[in-house]
């Protein structure tokens, strides 16, 4: 071994950052259209912000576009397609609290 006393200077010329994302849903696919959550609903072209997921108060999630089609097609009080509870959109505050409970230690 040759312990080196000289310090090497490294100059970074260029770098590429790569990130991946995924929805934090319990299922892999939307129970309505059966397409992957990491993909988009059949009406959309791009996943992500263009075709977001939405949670119900019952914690079931769907593509926003899919659940809206279902809710709007019901003449009486709509129910969650998975558990039949009265469908209500989960409030963002509730959802965030859920996050904090699930992932302690992350700020």
């Amino acid at each position: 071994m040759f312990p080196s006393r000289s310090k090497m200077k490294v100059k970074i010329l260029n770098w590429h950052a790569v990130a991946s994302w995924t929805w934090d849903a319990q299922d892999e696919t939307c129970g309505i259209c059966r397409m992957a959550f990491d993909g988009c609903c059949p009406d959309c072209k791009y996943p992500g912000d263009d075709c977001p997921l939405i949670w119900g108060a019952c914690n079931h999630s769907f593509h926003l576009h899919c659940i809206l089609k279902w809710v709007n097609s019901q003449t009486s009080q709509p129910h969650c397609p998975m558990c039949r509870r009265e469908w209500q959109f989960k409030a963002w505050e509730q959802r965030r609290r859920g996050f904090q409970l699930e992932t302690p230690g992350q700020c």
Partner: protein
Amino acid sequence: MTSSSAPSRKALSKIACNRLQKELVEWQVNPPAGFKHKVSDNLQRWVIEVNGAQGTLYANETYQLQVDFPEHYPMEAPQVIFLNPAPLHPHIYSNGHICLDILYDSWSPAMTVSSVCISILSMLSSSTAKQRPADNDRYVKNCRNGRSPKETRWWFHDDKV
């Protein structure tokens, strides 16, 4: 037989088409026990063979279900009827119409052909008497001009069978 009178035959929407293709693939990989999809190139009408479960009144009997999908499936329920001859069952009319809430009021877009088939087999299996519904003749007469069971206002009063 009036069963071939299809509901308004509007072509399947893109969403319906997409979902049915997925359901078909899923069925081929993992078909529900006791059922056989009769191969056809018609995605909008499936004909499915049902085998009565062993140890039930319908053991060793085979029936055929006809499933017609509406334009906006799965936001709307499919029309499901038995082709002639329909099994003798207190909730199945002689014209093949089935009194089962999930096919009408209680439909949910999370249900699939496969889950509907399982519900129908379960309904057959829990039957304790091979008989027609009490109002069979009156109902069937009312449906003579090919009315779809989806136009019927059903009363779901019996949760035992």
